[in-house]
């Protein structure tokens, strides 16, 4: 009994004010991603061509067997959407993680060490930032070849600059705070100071930034996949579903586009709202509890 009460308090404390609907949506999508194998009624990659282009169950011609209809190759749209969640979330989180790691490392070094290191690093960052994203991604994708791993790497390489900017600023201001001086006075090496003092204190900003970036990455991944340079078929990716189903808009097969599009929209919106909540929550003006 006590355990449950404790858990409740912890939940209350950490998740105070969390926007309920986005949180619920995300939880659902996460479930879908993790348990896709059990939740999806059909195989997302192989379909029955005899049952292609069936409409949703709510329309004439639709079947309960395929509640959201089927695509041009007879694959169940619902299953593809569910499995698509897995792909999108996997790519998004990995890419964000990669870019956060690179960016934070770069930013802390620039901010903490200052001087010419700072100058060089920041000019490099500026240059990198000026490269047009989609074009660069496309170029890299063509060079490296389309695959899930590659697209993660590509997006990690593109988006690290934001983190670098933010962490550099924070490291710069933290560097002059007294507890850092005191660590130096106690004989701490620079590496140790970074590890124990700078890093934990920039984590708040990094996490907030990351949560807001996930939405961006999802959309970009979908765009790249749509263009054909992202996740390769026959993997069920929402971007692919959009590109394959594009023609369906004009021939009345709206379910091919609407459901994956809706999924993307809901995911991105939920992450954005959640990221916003996280940002307010972790604001140093509030007593932060992480």
């Amino acid at each position: 009994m006590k355990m449950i009460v404790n858990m409740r308090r912890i939940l209350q404390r950490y998740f105070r004010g969390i926007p309920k609907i986005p949180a619920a949506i995300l939880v659902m999508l996460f479930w879908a991603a993790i348990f896709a194998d059990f939740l999806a009624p059909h195989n997302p990659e192989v379909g029955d061509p005899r049952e292609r282009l069936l409409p949703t169950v709510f329309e004439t011609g639709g079947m309960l067997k395929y509640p959201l209809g089927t695509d041009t190759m007879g694959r169940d749209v619902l299953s593809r959407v569910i499995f698509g969640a897995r792909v999108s979330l996997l790519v998004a989180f990995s890419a964000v993680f990669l870019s956060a790691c690179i960016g934070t490392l770069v930013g802390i070094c620039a901010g903490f060490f200052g001087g010419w290191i700072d100058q060089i690093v920041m000019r490099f960052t500026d240059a990198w930032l000026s490269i047009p994203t989609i074009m660069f991604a496309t170029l890299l994708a063509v060079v490296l070849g389309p695959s899930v791993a590659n697209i993660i790497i590509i997006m990690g390489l593109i988006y690290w600059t934001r983190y670098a900017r933010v962490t550099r600023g924070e490291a710069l201001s933290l560097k002059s705070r007294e507890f850092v001086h005191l660590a130096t006075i106690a004989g701490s090496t620079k590496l140790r100071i970074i590890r124990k003092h700078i890093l934990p204190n920039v984590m708040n900003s990094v996490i907030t930034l990351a949560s807001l970036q996930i939405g961006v990455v999802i959309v970009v991944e979908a765009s790249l996949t749509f263009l054909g340079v992202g996740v390769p078929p026959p993997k069920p990716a929402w971007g692919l579903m959009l590109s394959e189903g594009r023609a369906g808009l004009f021939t009345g097969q709206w379910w091919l586009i609407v459901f994956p599009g809706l999924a993307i929209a809901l995911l991105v919106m939920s992450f954005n709202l959640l990221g916003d909540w996280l940002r307010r929550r972790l604001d140093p003006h509030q007593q932060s509890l992480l």
Partner: protein
Amino acid sequence: MTSEEKIPAIELQQIKKYFPVKKGIIRDRVVGYVKALDGVDLKLSANEVVGLVGESGSGKSTLARIILLLEHPTEGQLVFEGKDVITFNRSDLKRYRQKIQAVFQDPYSSLSPRLKVKEIIAEPSLVTGKLSRKEIDDMASEYLQMAGLHAGIRNVYPHELSGGQRQRVAIGRAISTQATVIILDEPTSALDVSVRLQIVELLMRLQQELGLSYLLIGHDLAMVAYMSTYIAVMYLGKIVELTRTQELIKNPLHPYTRALISASLPSHPNEKKERIALAGEIANPFDIPSGCRFHPRCPEAKEECYHIDPILKPFLENHWVACNF
């Protein structure tokens, strides 16, 4: 400067610290120097408290930073236990870092916000070697209690503590490495009035129990006088007077010291004070007057004072003054 038998723990010899001021866009021209410290001699011996008073621009904070090796002196020697700091090898430096600690003014930025109190206290010791969880725990409990706090506090984060409690944690950390010298930079200025004396009492108790040396920097002459055996008065980067506390109050020699003492507010409405009014503003260390740096504001300035910059010399027994008279 104390009696001959005591060995100075730290000695400053003619320390100068000039910060260059640069102008220009492409090629930085040095247009002048901010002379934060302009020839400071000071000895800090074992088991004594030396107070350093001065107003803004006096250089007292810069002096602290130099002793703490956060800055290098432009000229002069910093000598620790007989050895010049410049000649230190790795292990000398390590030892120095363990023996000299500091407590700063702002309890809110002195403690790392993401570390628990026990990690904060153990930090200076962890620098020299690993400690087991139990060792950290025990160490934190021990020093927290010495600082007058409950040992249970070791598991909380700084933001849950009040200013007074945080300062105690900072003090606990400072003594955790068996330091012999602690630099206190305005340790109570940011605290509530009712808590200040508590912290002062704590510091004094620890000083006696552990035989520490303090360099106490403050702007409140009364508080510094309460704690210190010797007081050095600084003005614009130089020490202008240095003597025992009682002597300084009873018999201040330098005009600036006299002005400072007379400017301090009374303890009772009936305390009649003869006030010495100083002309002008606090001087700027960028633009130090020629000759004696105090002469533009000195009510007793004479002809020589425009030209000669006096050095700190003993005038009376154990009483040094830097004045042309």
